[in-house]
């Protein structure tokens, strides 16, 4: 994987099922973000094949990859990446603007997403008026507003304190259980790891452990 002399991932053979709440766990440089990028069709493998939601990532054009992300995927980032000049409502609305949705439909979906993350009272607030936890909940609402099949989250709790991290994880778990949205995390945060139903440990670009956590475990 990767370009030139550096191989970020090697010998991977992984399958993810719909509705999984799964984490790619490993230290920095273990290849978890690269794998997340490939799953998110932001990168292509230099050898081998990656099939995401029925699409072969390496054969997608830039436009097709963008369309795949637009329709089926949501992203949650470590630093929230909310657009500061827009309100909470408008930030959550952004993914829907890229799809052919009516204004009415957009309003309904945005309000539903904000209700999910319990931020209806912050609809008109700007990101600068939110706490870190609230900002990340807005980012989650933005990721799920189009009801994607897959949500990719790169270190989503890295900038949050423990209490906010647990709140965020509770929210995501609830979404996973009630909407059957697949979540894939890249993380090395113990708090996140505790919530995962499947833990894939990576080291130096290789899977060293793939563990399914059974309910009650």
């Amino acid at each position: 994987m990767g370009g030139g002399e550096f191989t970020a991932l090697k010998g991977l053979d992984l399958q993810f099922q719909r509705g999984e709440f799964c984490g790619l766990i490993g230290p920095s440089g273990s290849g978890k973000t690269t794998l997340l990028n490939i799953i998110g069709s932001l990168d292509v493998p230099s050898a081998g094949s990656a099939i995401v939601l029925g699409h072969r990532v390496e054969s997608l054009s830039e436009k097709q990859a963008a369309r795949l992300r637009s329709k089926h995927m949501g992203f949650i980032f470590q630093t929230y990446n909310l657009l500061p000049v827009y309100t909470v409502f408008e930030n959550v609305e952004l993914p829907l603007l890229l799809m052919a949705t009516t204004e009415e439909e957009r309003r309904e979906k945005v309000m539903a997403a904000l209700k999910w993350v319990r931020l209806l009272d912050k609809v008109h607030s700007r990101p600068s008026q939110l706490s870190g936890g609230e900002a990340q909940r807005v980012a989650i609402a933005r990721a799920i507003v189009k009801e994607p099949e897959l949500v990719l989250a790169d270190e989503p709790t890295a900038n949050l304190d423990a209490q906010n991290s647990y709140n965020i994880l509770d929210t995501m778990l609830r979404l996973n259980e009630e909407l059957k949205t697949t979540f894939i995390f890249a993380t090395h945060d113990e708090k996140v790891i505790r919530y995962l139903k499947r833990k894939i440990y990576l080291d130096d670009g290789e899977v060293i452990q793939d563990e399914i956590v059974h309910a009650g475990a």
Partner: protein
Amino acid sequence: MIRFLLKGLLRDRSRSLFPVLMVSAGVFLCVFLYSYLNGAIGDMVDASARFDTGHVKVITRAYNELASQMPNDLALAGAANELEKLRTGHPRMIWAERIRFGGLLDIPDEMGETRAQGPFFGMAIDLVNNNSPDLALLGVAKAIVRGRMPAMSHEILISHAFAEKLGVVPGDKATLLSSTMNGAMAMHNFTIAGTVRGTVRFGMVMIDKSTIIADINDIRTALDMADFVGEILGFTEDTLYDDDRMIALAEAYNTAHSREEDEFSPLMTTLGEGGVMGDILRLSTFAVTIVVGIFVFAMSIVLWNAGLMNGIRRYGEIGVRLAMGESKGAIYRAMIMESICIGLAGSIIGTIAGLAASYYLQIVGFDISDMLQKSSIMISSVIRAKVSITSYYIGFFPGVFASVLGTVFAGIGIYRRQTSQLFKELEV
């Protein structure tokens, strides 16, 4: 999506207001500098044309050779016929007869003895005819400080400083002492009708010195120049000099009327042709082109850089939009459209402000007479801007093209990188 982007653009002052202000300032400076230099050169050309060279000038070939000596012995014969021919042949031009002469102005006391005396530079124009084009061209009436316009023959105007030096007031008598075109002594009595001041009225410091303005028919009589004229000056109707048109006019005229073997045959010269004025005009035009070119280029780099920085500053937003599923092409196009809007808005505001300031300076002017007290060249003491067609569009080069180019280059970075690499750089 357009409404969404527009909303963001308007709310984010660092993306809209500040870039627009920056572009406006750059464009304003370009427009103003161009108009100012254009005006400074234009004023010099205009002053020289009105007082000395015309846009074209008909003289004899021999007079042309010695023009700086005001050689009235080489004046053009058949003046009335030549003037009529020019007016008929070129009705869209303004034609004016002039005789330039020099001599002594003698101020007598009650006994007829010399009370004061001084050398002068004289300009004979069609002064007592109300329809004279020269009155408007030279703005004589507006230049009067004391007294009135000459209303009849044998009345002259003299410069205010000269009048003070000689101790005369309007109504006093003065005797012109000069030489006729045949080399004989010329004496002619005049009444001073009024005094004129250059610095205040003409905008010409030189007129403040020892100048007299007399009616051309009086001077013809005084200098024995019946049906002769020193120069016939031609001006375009709008008094704006057009080098190409004047050269074509002069070539056609000279082909038809001028004969090399006859030194007394008429010759038409243009303002830009030969002589000091021609050199100044060419040098000035070249200098203006270079200065404005360098300035526009410098402003282009500044605004290009601003466009580039603005694009780079928004990498975070771009990363989010890529992740949301917007294609690179769509983002790139939106950035360029945004940049065009900013560039256009800034250019329009900057051009309006630049034109307004230039118009103000065109009307009011900037008085540099203090710097020209000892000047002996024909240069206006009030520098004015001049708004031309170019003033309306010159600011759009740095304003729109450079800003957009900066964004295009900033955007290429986004367009060409692999998305994941871009994500890493965006720190998304």
